[in-house]
C-alpha cells in the first residue's frame, strides 16, 4: 500500500473501516479484464494497474471529502461504477485510489414528468424495468443493461432505439458533479432547487463539462447523481421469457413489432431510412450485419466458427437485411398505419418482409455487449460515430478496406463494413465498426490498427467517436476544431490543477504510444513529453 497510513486513516474516517481496503486480494478484484472490451490490447497491458486502495463512499458529501483528501495529499484517483469500459475505466498509475461508487444506489422516479433520479450504482436493467412498468422506456446503450446508467449517459448511450432521440446528452437533466478538486457543482434545475427535472443551465450550460461526443472516462470529475429523461412508451407489457442466458422479451405485436426486410441493395436500405423519416414513422431502423445473425444463432464459440466459416465476401456483400421497429405509441391503429406506410416504402424499393420473431433479444432489454467476446476473447469498437447516413456508409466501407491489411491478427470478417442506422429521424446516421482478436496472440497490430483508424479519419475528414481520451490527444487535437485539445487541457487544468483525477487521462493514449515500443514507429505527430507516474 503506497497510500500512507496517515492518509488511509483520514479516508477511513470518511467512510468507516468496512468501506475501504488496501488488501491486495480486494484490490486484485479490480484488475482490468479478463475478457471483453479492449481485453488483452496493448493499452490494457501497458496502461492499467491494480489499484493501491479501494474506497466505497455512500453519499455525495463523502465523495467530495475523499476527492479533497486526494488533492491535499496528491493521491491519484479514478471513479468507478460498473467498469464496463474495460481498460480505460481502471487505474492507470500505480497506487491509485479507486473510488467505487456501487454503494450509491438511490433511485427515484417521477412518472408524471418522465424522469428517474439515479446514483452511479444504478444499472440500466433496474432502470428499464421500473420505467417499463410505468409506460416509459429508456435507451439502453451498447454497453448493456449491466452497466451503470450514469456512466453510460456521460460516456456513450445509444442504440437502435435512438431513432427518435439520438444524443443521450439531451436526456441528461439535473446532475450533481464533484469536480476534480472536490468542489460540487449542481447542474440544471438542481443549481437553484431540489427538483432535478430540468437539464439546461442558468445561462451557459455546464453540462458541456460532462462529456464530449463520447465520454471523458472520469477525468473531469465524478457524477454522483443524475436525473435522466425517460421516454413515453405504449401500455402493453413486454413479457420476459426463456432461461438465462437465452432470454427474450415477448412483444405485444398489436403495439410493438420488429420486422426484418430483405432489400435489393445497400442503397435501397439507405433510401428506406430516409423515406421512413420523411413519413415520420418508426421507432428504430438499422442495417443487420450477417455477423449479428451468426452470433444470435450460435450457442457456443465452436458453433459460431462453424457457422461463420460458411460465409464469404460474396455472401456478406449481398446480404441486405433491414430491421425496423414499429411502436404504436398512440394506439394499435398507429402501428397498423405505420405498417401500411412501411410496406409501401419497402415495396417501392423492391424489398420484401422476412419472417421475424415477435420478440426482442437485444435492444429493449440488454443491448448485446455480453456476447461480443464469445468468438475471440477480445474486442473493441474502433468507431461508433453519429453523423449522417451519408457519412455512415462510406465510413464503414473505409474501415473495412483499412482493416484488410491488419487481418490477422484481427478476426477475418470477409470485408464486413460494420452497420449503419438512422438516428433522430435520419437527421443523423450512425455507423459502428467492431474488431475482434485473440488476446493470447500478439496484438501489436491490433494496437496499430486502432491508431491507424484515427489517422484515416483525419485524412479522409470523417468525424469519429474516438476523440479526447480515446486516441492520442495530440494526434487528434490539431485536426478537430481545430485544436480542441488546447481547450480540453485548459479546462482540465482549471479544475484539476494537481492532475489527480484519473491521470494521465485525457493524455493516456499519448502516454501509451510513448511507452509501448511497438507503437513508436507510428508516431508522426508532435507532442510534448507526457509525464507518467510509474
Amino acid at each position, binding site marked *: 500500500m503506497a497510500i500512507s497510513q496517515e492518509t488511509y486513516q483520514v479516508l477511513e474516517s470518511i467512510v468507516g473501516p468496512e468501506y475501504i481496503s488496501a488488501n491486495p486480494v480486494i484490490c486484485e478484484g479490480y484488475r482490468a479484464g479478463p475478457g471483453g472490451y479492449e481485453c488483452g490490447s496493448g493499452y490494457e497491458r501497458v496502461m492499467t494497474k491494480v489499484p493501491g486502495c479501494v474506497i466505497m463512499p455512500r453519499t455525495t458529501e463523502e465523495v467530495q471529502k475523499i476527492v479533497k483528501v486526494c488533492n491535499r495529499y496528491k493521491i491519484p484517483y479514478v471513479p468507478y461504477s460498473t467498469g464496463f469500459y474495460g481498460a480505460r475505466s481502471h487505474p492507470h498509475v500505480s497506487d491509485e485510489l479507486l473510488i467505487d461508487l456501487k454503494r450509491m444506489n438511490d433511485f427515484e422516479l417521477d412518472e408524471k*414528468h*418522465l424522469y428517474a433520479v439515479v446514483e452511479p450504482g444504478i444499472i440500466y436493467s433496474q432502470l428499464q424495468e421500473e420505467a417499463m412498468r410505468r*409506460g416509459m422506456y429508456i435507451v439502453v446503450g451498447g454497453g448493456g443493461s449491466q452497466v451503470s446508467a450514469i456512466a453510460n449517459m456521460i460516456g456513450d448511450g445509444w442504440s437502435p432505439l435512438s431513432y*427518435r*432521440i*439520438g*444524443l443521450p446528452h439531451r436526456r441528461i437533466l439535473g446532475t450533481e458533479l464533484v*469536480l476534480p478538486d472536490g468542489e*460540487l*457543482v*449542481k*447542474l440544471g434545475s438542481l*443549481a*437553484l432547487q431540489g*427538483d432535478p*427535472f*430540468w437539464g*439546461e*443551465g*442558468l*445561462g*451557459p*450550460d*455546464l*453540462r*458541456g463539462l460532462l*462529456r*464530449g*461526443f*463520447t465520454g*471523458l472516462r472520469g477525468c473531469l470529475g465524478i457524477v454522483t447523481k443524475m436525473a435522466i*429523461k425517460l421516454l*413515453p412508451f405504449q401500455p402493453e407489457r413486454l413479457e420476459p421469457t426463456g432461461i438465462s442466458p437465452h432470454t427474450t422479451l415477448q412483444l405485444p405485436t398489436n403495439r410493438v413489432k420488429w420486422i426484418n426486410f430483405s432489400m435489393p441493395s445497400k442503397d435501397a436500405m439507405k433510401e428506406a431510412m430516409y423515406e421512413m423519416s*420523411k413519413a415520420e414513422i418508426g421507432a428504430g431502423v438499422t442495417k443487420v450485419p450477417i455477423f449479428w445473425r451468426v452470433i444470435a444463432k450460435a450457442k457456443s464459440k465452436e458453433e459460431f466458427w462453424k457457422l461463420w466459416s460458411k460465409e464469404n465476401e460474396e455472401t456478406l456483400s449481398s446480404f441486405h437485411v433491414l430491421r425496423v421497429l414499429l411502436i404504436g*405509441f*398512440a*394506439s394499435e*391503429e398507429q402501428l*397498423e398505419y405505420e405498417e*401500411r406506410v412501411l410496406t409501401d416504402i419497402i415495396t417501392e424499393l423492391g424489398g420484401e418482409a422476412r419472417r421475424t420473431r415477435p420478440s426482442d433479444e437485444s435492444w429493449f432489454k440488454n443491448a448485446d455487449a455480453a456476447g461480443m467476446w464469445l468468438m475471440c476473447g477480445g474486442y473493441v469498437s474502433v468507431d461508433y460515430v*453519429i453523423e*449522417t447516413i*451519408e*457519412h455512415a456508409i462510406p465510413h464503414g466501407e473505409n474501415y473495412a478496406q483499412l482493416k484488410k491489411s491488419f487481418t490477422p491478427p484481427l478476426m477475418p470478417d470477409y470485408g464486413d463494413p460494420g452497420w449503419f442506422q438512422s438516428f433522430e429521424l*435520419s437527421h443523423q446516421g450512425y455507423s459502428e465498426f467492431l474488431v475482434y482478436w485473440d488476446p493470447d496472440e500478439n496484438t501489436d497490430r491490433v494496437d496499430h490498427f486502432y491508431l491507424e483508424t484515427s489517422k484515416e479519419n483525419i485524412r479522409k*475528414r*470523417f*468525424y469519429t467517436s474516438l*476523440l479526447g481520451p480515446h486516441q492520442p490527444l495530440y494526434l487528434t*487535437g490539431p*485536426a*478537430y*476544431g*481545430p485544436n*480542441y485539445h488546447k*481547450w*480540453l487541457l*485548459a479546462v482540465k487544468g*482549471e479544475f484539476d490543477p494537481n492532475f489527480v483525477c484519473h491521470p494521465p487521462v*485525457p493524455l493516456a493514449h499519448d502516454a501509451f504510444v510513448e511507452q509501448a515500443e511497438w507503437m513508436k514507429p507510428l508516431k508522426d505527430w508532435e507532442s510534448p513529453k507526457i509525464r507518467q507516474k510509474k
Partner: protein
Amino acid sequence: MKEKLLEIVGSENFFDDPEALAKYSKDFSLAPRGVPNYVVKPKDNQEVQRVIKLANEHLTPVVPSSSGVHFQGATIPKQGGIILDLTRMNQILEVDELNRRVRMEAGVTWEQIASELGKRGFRMIIPLLPHPLRSVVTDWLEREVPTNTVYDYGEPLQSMEVVWPTGEIFRTGSASVTGYPDSPSKGANPSGPGLDFYRFLQGAQGTMGVVTWANLKIEYLPKIDKVLFAPVHDLNYTIDFLYRVLRLRIIQECLLLNNINLASIIAEDWRKDFEKLRASLPPWTLILVISGMHRRPEEQIQYEEETLYKVIKNEFPGIPLADNLPGFPGLGKKLLPMLRKPWPKEVTYWKNRYKGACHSLFFITKPILASKFINKVEEIAARYGYPISDIGGYLQPIEHNRACHLEFNFFYNPASQPEVERVRSLYSEAASVLLDKGALFTRPYGELAKLLYDRAAGYAMTLRRVKKVFDPNNIMNPGNLCF
C-alpha cells in the same frame, strides 16, 4: 483603435457617430441605456477574428449583436466597447434537403429562413411568432422554446462555428473535421470534439464567443393539417389532459394562450377587433395541430383524431375540442400559417400592439404548478395596481408536457414613466417571489442574473472558472450574467 477597426471592416461598415451609437444603446427591454464606443459590421469570420484580437490587445469589450431587434437588453453595452453587428453575415449557406439540415450565418432572420424553406416544402420548428428580424441562430442559442412538441429530439441546433473570445476560430461537433464543409461530415452532430463546447455557448448572451454560423435541423411541411381548439375554463383539467395526450406523439404544435395574447395575435383591424376579441375569447384557449405527413396523410390524420377523441370521450369529457373555437369561425385557417411563420414585418409586433411595449417574465416549470404561479402573479400585479385582465399569458408545453415554458406579458406605454416604473417594480417583485416558489429561470437577462447567480453560487463559481479559460481578459459582453 478606430483606425484599426476602419482598416478591418472598411469605412462603410464602421460607425462612431452619436446617432448610430445611440441606436445600440437601448432596445425594447427596460434595461438601462449603455452607449458603445464603436459599431462595426464584419462580413465574415476573418473580420470577426481580427476585431476580437484587436479588442484583446486593448482590453476593450465586444458585444455581439445578430438580430435587427432586441427584447432583453443583452446587447446593450454595459461597459462600452465595440458592437459587433453581424447583420451583414446573413447568408443561408446550405440547404441539405436529404439530411434535413440548413447551415446559416448568424445574421439570418426568421423572415429569411421561413421564406426560403417554405419554397422548398420545408419548415423549421419555430418559437411562437418570433419577430421577423430576430436572428434564427441567436434565438436557438438563447433557447427559445418551440411550439412544436412532436419531435423527441427537440432542439434543432447542430454544429456551429465560433470565434472564441481569444480570437481563435473553432468548429463544434462533427463540423470540427478538417476542411469542413468540404468533407463527408455534414455537421449533423452538435457534440464534441472532446467537450460539449456547444453547451457553453447556449444561453450565454454572447459572453462565451461569437457564433458565426450554425447548422440547424429542418422538417418537411406536412401534407395535411388540422387545427383543433378548446376553450379553457379549468386550466388544471386541461393540463391534466395534456399530460395524457402529449405522450402519444401525435400532436405537432400545442400551446395555451390567454385571451389578451390570443386577441393580440388574431386582431386584424386593431381598433375594431382587439377589445371585442379579448372580451369574447375564453380566459385561455388550447390550440392543437395534428398533421398528416408524406404518406397516406388522410389515414394518419384519421388515426390521430380518433385516438385524441377516444381519450376525450373516455377520460376527459370536459375538454370541448373542436375544429373551431365557438364564436370564432375561420380561426383555424387563420392561425395555422401564423404558427409556422414569424410575425409579419408590416404589422407592429404582437407583443407591442396593445400598448407599444411589453416586458415578459418567463421561466420553466412543471405544468402542474402553472396555476399556482398564475395566481401568484395576479396577486402581485393587483398590489401594483396593474389590471389582472391586462396580463398576457402563454403556456408552452415541452417534451411531452413533462415541463412547460410559462410566460407573463406586462404591457405598458413606453412614453409613460409611471407605467414604465410600475412594470419594472412589478416584474422585479414577481421574479423574486416566483423564484422563491420554485420557478426555474434559465435565461438570466438583466436584473435576473444577479438574483439567480446569488442563489446558485456553486454554479456561478464554476461558470466563472470556465469563462476564464475561454475569455481570460473578460472582453465578451462583460456586465452580463455573472461576469
